């Protein structure tokens, strides 16, 4: 479980997050929505133990999130993460050496699933291939927490579709807690259980995806738009 307790993060005078309290239950899939600069990435970096709150606490699996939490958290960052000079195979070996929970068996299945070429260098790969490689590296870990920061950024609809199918195929539902930040809601919506809207560093709204349709006849996208009217 992941919990933010009255978390504020200040970068100089700018507040990236303002008194945010949120709980993410074990085994569920959450979507974090909101415009650029709403605090989504800051929140993810905090849950990954890479950024610390100015006020409040971030608790991951019962302990305050710090560098050591990387053991329990597989984090897909929107920037960096893969090295241009390395091949797919070398990236896998690098990740396997860094993380005890990395499953080479799962990585093999994912190479097939994501149609990646083992000996291709990252530098020679398209954005879509790099996006798929990043997901492979994260999904190969049997970590209790998966944090995916903008996994669809700059990818075309076909690749987004493959990524959604990859998530459904390889996530251990009920065991792994997954938080996904995204602008591209359409493909991922049927996979999410709950969605949260962040806006200017604050929680603007929160919903259960199926209940939203059942009770209000709205998709998450429509709900998101309604919250900005």
């Amino acid at each position, binding site marked *: 479980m992941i919990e933010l307790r009255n978390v504020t993060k200040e970068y100089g005078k700018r507040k990236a997050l303002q008194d945010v309290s949120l709980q993410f239950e074990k085994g569920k899939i959450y979507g974090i929505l909101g415009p650029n600069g709403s605090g989504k990435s800051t929140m993810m970096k905090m849950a990954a133990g890479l950024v610390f709150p100015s006020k409040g606490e971030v608790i991951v699996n019962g302990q305050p999130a710090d560098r050591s939490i990387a053991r329990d958290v597989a984090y897909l960052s929107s920037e960096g993460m893969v090295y241009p000079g390395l091949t797919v195979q070398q990236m896998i070996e690098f990740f396997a050496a860094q993380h005890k929970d990395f499953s080479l068996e799962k990585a093999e299945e994912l190479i097939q699933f994501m149609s990646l070429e083992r000996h291709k260098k990252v530098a020679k790969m398209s954005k879509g291939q790099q996006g798929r490689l990043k997901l492979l590296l994260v999904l190969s870990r049997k970590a209790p927490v998966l944090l995916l920061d903008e996994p669809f950024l700059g990818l075309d609809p076909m690749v987004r579709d493959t990524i959604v199918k990859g998530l459904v195929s390889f996530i251990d539902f009920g065991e792994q807690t997954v938080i996904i930040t995204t602008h591209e809601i359409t493909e991922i919506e049927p996979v999410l*259980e709950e969605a949260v809207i962040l806006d200017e560093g604050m929680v603007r709204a929160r919903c259960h995806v199926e209940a939203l349709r059942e009770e209000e006849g709205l998709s998450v996208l429509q709900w998101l738009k309604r919250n900005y009217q």
Partner: protein
Amino acid sequence: MTEEFRTSKPIYRQIADRIIQQFVRGKIAPGEKLPSVREMAIQSGVNPNTIQRTYGELERMDVVETRRGQGTFMTEQIDRKKQLRIEIQREMIETFIQNMRGIGVEDKEITEAVEQFLAGKEPSEND
């Protein structure tokens, strides 16, 4: 591509409706084994919990049967299939009638229009 879902109904219901439709149309045979929850989730691009709900709902409706350790199977009861066919017909008629009334067509005109359509004639202008 993953299919798209309408917003007016929960996704688990839409998938249940689709399975019933396929059953009535004969695309799924009585007694046929349905994909596992995970397979179905991958095919549809949805959360496996959603499929779990779909199968649960279909079981409550006596449309599928879950056999422990074997999976989920379409009902073999032909009577149930006949009932489902009638239920679907009713829903289609209801939608059609509501739409026709919605554009101000009188009930008598609706029957006439349907008869004419079935006879292969163009709709006439009454006003």
